[in-house]
């Protein structure tokens, strides 16, 4: 067991299941991050569009 930035190499190897464990976590968190980024961008665009419409119609 050699130390790799404080974590033992066995941690990264996941007992030989690294090719299954790490992609699972990458996918799950990648999807949550993508959904959050998508929601944030859509929210910002919708707010901007509404603000533009309200500004254009202001007397």
């Amino acid at each position, binding site marked *: 067991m050699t130390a790799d930035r404080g974590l033992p190499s066995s*941690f990264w190897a996941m007992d030989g*299941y690294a090719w299954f464990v790490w992609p699972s976590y990458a*996918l*799950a968190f990648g999807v949550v991050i993508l*959904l959050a980024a998508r*929601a944030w961008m859509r929210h910002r665009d*919708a707010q901007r*569009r*509404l603000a533009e419409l309200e500004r254009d119609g202001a007397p």
Partner: protein
Amino acid sequence: MISGFANPERFMRLSAKLLPWISGVAVALFAVGLPWALYFAPPDYQQHDSARIMYVHVPAAWLAMALYAGMAAASVSSLVWRHALADVAARAMAPIGAAFTAVCLVTGALWGQPMWGAWWVWDARLTSVLVLFFVYLGYLALWAAIEDETRASRAAAILCLVGAANLPIVKFSVDWWNTLHQPASVFRADGPTMHPSLLHPLLVMALAFTCAAAALVLAEMRVFILRRRAESLTLRRRRAT
């Protein structure tokens, strides 16, 4: 009481306050749950470290079903009581539920390969979850295909309620048929069968994913309400000119 929250104005005010808190709680729970799941929780005595996939696979599966149940409840509310926010809520939950169902299917395949020796088997649990994913896609396609929002909302609500028949099949498939997938080990009448050292990090991760999903649904609902406001403003302008 629920009809009070169905007011879009009130919802926008409340959700603006709730969103940062729910997102913050989700991040804090992930900060605790992730090292617990990946490092501090012991490996399973039979499946070793491959069992750590459980901490993302199981919450994704629970959310896939919970979000669909939420969509079905919102669809009933939309069809029967015509709550102003019901169809918005159902529509907002659909892409998030579909994404969690996809995560559940793919992480299940990644867990199945080393344990069962196969990425996929036509087992009742796996097949019923695949059907759930297709129902989600059909629901989203229906919203995209019908331009008139009132008609789209009604058609999507009916499709959602028809698809809800699949939920008990997903839940009880492991009891009704002989499946390769293991039976329920947390939500059981006689209590969880998992050891607390594995159960506790699972519950923390499930709560973290649930808070993240709640924040995503609220944000998505706000987008639809803002868009509706913009559309009605544009229509009013067109009528005035």
